[in-house]
């Protein structure tokens, strides 16, 4: 029996690359769910929205999809700030965030998806860019550029986020708002403003993640659903609100999914993240690098 070693290595390499992309998809939820305690289950829908914006501008102006996503970052930030303001006024201030806040985000998820279906239809859309297509070969390891580029940009994004969170005043305030709002108030900082900024950043990451997604694979409106389980599995496994933990967990899940897809068939891959999520919740709810 020949256990194909090169197949195994290839699966692990592509798992790590995909994991880098998953980290970008998850970091927004790590911020909102992990740090701010806002269960934003609509994040995958915003990611798909990002994909479609990248698709539209790419198709009409031929711009690079990742460049487009950087250009529209402020718009996504504003969208996030507006959503947080509504969320704060309607739910958080009234202390109703658990049940109705969840329903609110679920409604947003649904509206975004159905609107995209009504406007673009359910056909798969894809983008054009120089790095989509070529593959680098290292011995018998294949590295497709369409996955390598998003992975590298995504790791850069997370490094920047981590620097902002740990070094800048705003970042430290964001970390503080999760722990003690009263202390923050005593420092003359408005916790609602800090949370609005943090939530804006978390939605802004969806713009980048959306561009990565449509570079890696063709996108249709309901693709986002697969990412709900994955995103929260990574977030919980990594330890709520820890960005380094998110990267490690994303790569772990990427590798396990890639191995499953290689040796059992790609149709089983969506079940992997859910299994890991349940296992984590049952065995170690604090996650790998969790603080709680």
């Amino acid at each position, binding site marked *: 029996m020949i256990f194909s070693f090169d197949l195994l290595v290839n699966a692990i390499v592509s798992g790590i690359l995909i994991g880098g992309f998953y980290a970008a998809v998850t970091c927004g939820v790590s911020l909102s769910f992990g740090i701010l305690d806002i269960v934003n289950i609509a994040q995958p829908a915003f990611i798909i929205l990002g994909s479609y914006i990248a698709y539209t501008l790419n198709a009409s102006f031929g711009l690079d999809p990742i460049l487009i996503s950087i250009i529209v970052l402020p718009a996504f930030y504003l969208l996030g700030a507006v959503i947080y303001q509504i969320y704060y006024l309607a739910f958080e201030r009234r202390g109703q965030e658990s049940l109705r806040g969840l*329903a609110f985000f679920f409604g947003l998820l649904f509206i975004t998806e159905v609107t995209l279906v009504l406007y673009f239809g359910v056909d798969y859309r894809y983008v054009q860019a120089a790095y989509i297509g070529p593959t680098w070969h290292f011995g018998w390891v294949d590295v497709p550029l369409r996955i390598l580029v998003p992975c590298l940009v995504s790791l850069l994004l997370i490094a920047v986020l981590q620097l902002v969170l740990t070094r800048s005043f705003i970042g430290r305030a964001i970390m503080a708002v999760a722990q003690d709002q*009263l202390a923050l108030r005593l420092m003359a900082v408005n916790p609602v403003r800090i949370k609005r900024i943090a939530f804006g950043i978390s939605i802004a990451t969806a713009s980048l993640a959306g561009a990565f997604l449509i570079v890696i694979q063709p996108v249709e409106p309901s693709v986002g659903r697969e990412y709900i389980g994955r995103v929260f599995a990574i977030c919980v496994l990594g330890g709520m609100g820890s960005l380094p933990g998110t990267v490690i967990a994303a790569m772990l899940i990427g590798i396990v999914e890639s191995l499953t897809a290689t040796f059992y068939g790609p149709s089983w891959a969506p079940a992997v993240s859910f*299994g890991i999520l349940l296992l984590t919740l049952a065995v170690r*709810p604090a996650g790998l690098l969790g603080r709680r």
Partner: protein
Amino acid sequence: MSVRSIPFLLVTLAIGAAVFAGAMLLGNDYYFFAGYVVAQYIVLSSAWNILGGYCGYVNFGTAGFFGLGAYSTVAVYQLVEGNEFPHVVPIPLLILLGGLISGVVGFGMGYLTLRLRGAFFAIATLALAVVLETLVVNWDFVGGSRGAYIVRPETIGPIGSYVRYLFLLMLVLAVAALNVARLIERSRLGYGFATIRDDELAAEAAGVPTLRLKLVATTISGALMGMAGAPFPYYIGYLQPSSTFGFDYAVNAIAMSLIGGTSSWVGPLIGTLLLGSLQQLITVTISSAVNLLLVGALLVVFVIVAPNGILGLVHKYLQRKPDEFVGRRRIDLDAAAAAAATAATAAPPAAKPGSAPGSPPP
């Protein structure tokens, strides 16, 4: 079982019988097709509300439990199809089977996630539908991704066409779901659920067995959803994983409960009758995608503007006690107030970690 449950059961049965008789008089099969969907959503939203409204735990996996019931029917159908006498398994039996399987899955999900914060349960249920879809797609016996065909008999006994029989069954199920919901609401179980919703930590401190109660709720709720799904393959004729496990069921069940009002069994009923009929109308006149958009938009608008749904609005209009106890009798109010009082005295306010603004640093 309180004394007033029997009259309520009789009244709901009578209304159900009247609805069925009315539809028979109209004679058009379309009414049975449309009525089946509305009755199905009465079951789904009532089931959702047992966990979501009474306990305050959000279940996004309605489609998962519903699909589980539907696919258990398909599995049985595939088992007996090769026999000489197809359809040897009567549908009421299939309904029980679907309820059993979904109830077990609901219990398992609850056991794994309910010891943590509520959000984890919601997320796990959200992923449940995706995973069940993956399982079904990979299970060729029930049709895999190609879907499964169910050939239903043209007619049955004295009722006439088969869809009338299915409507009758779903109507019975809807009556049963409403009775179960009302019974729970007015029993010790319901008060226990209410303490979990209002302040779980305080309830725990007061000696309420919260985990056990939550498990009871997930099991009952999941079982009812599975029961609603079991006759579905016979209704639709062709079952396909991606539509069976789609978001539509989840968003509809949640929207109907929240728009009607979650505090009482009346809420989901009102919400379903309003939204369900509206949907049938829009699906026929405009399109089903617009109908889904409308449901999503209504859900968002209602949770922002009228957080307690139509019941809350009616209540505000009548200007009575706080919305939580609308539709209950005075005696229930007293009992709930007493429970809340015990809970409040038993737990020191500082023990609630969620109340960040007021709590001192540890």
